[in-house]
């Protein structure tokens, strides 16, 4: 089991926690798509309190290989 960790820049306000904006909805759809992949378990995300133009994303996978297989499939 492994957790994928990503740190990525966003436009401030693009990922409000209520996901009510168009950008928030797109992000949620992408996450749901990723979570349909074999070996994907669940995800957690949020914007940094100290720097709202950075987002943190964690995705639990059965293994690092499960995530790599997904990346190679694209």
């Amino acid at each position, binding site marked *: *089991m492994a957790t994928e960790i990503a740190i990525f820049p966003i436009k401030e306000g693009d990922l409000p926690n209520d996901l009510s904006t168009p950008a928030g909805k797109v992000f949620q759809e992408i996450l749901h798509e990723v979570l349909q992949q074999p070996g994907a378990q669940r995800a957690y995300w949020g914007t940094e309190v100290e720097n709202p133009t950075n987002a943190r994303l964690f995705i639990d996978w059965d293994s690092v290989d499960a995530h790599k297989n997904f990346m190679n499939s694209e």
Partner: protein
Amino acid sequence: MFHANLKPHPPSQVLSKSNSPATEILLLYFPTDYSQADQDKFEADCQKLLGIVEKNSDKYTANAGGWVIEDLTIPGTEEKAKAYSAQIGWKSVQDHLDFRSHDAFKENIYLLRGAKDLKKLAVVHYHGNEVSK
């Protein structure tokens, strides 16, 4: 993007705001050739510190941590490092900041900040949204 084997797995208790309304997210950077003995010592010191936090704060909620599988670049440099990913849950960001004034913190934070050959420590907070299948 990188990977870590966080313990415990899944790290839901610390990464989801349903249990941890605020999560302190740390990355600690060490030399790429940090020895297994040094890694073991650091992990033991981390667990010791977390035990002290749990005993001294009712605002602490959970933790998960582990070594990053890939070597990471230290922010602001081009230097590669072995990194440790640590997450600590709190009732609020302010509760974490308040704990920094606690004697138990002041007397024991050396366990983290004084880790052998520590090159950099980066910390932020987030309020984690969990998305299940």
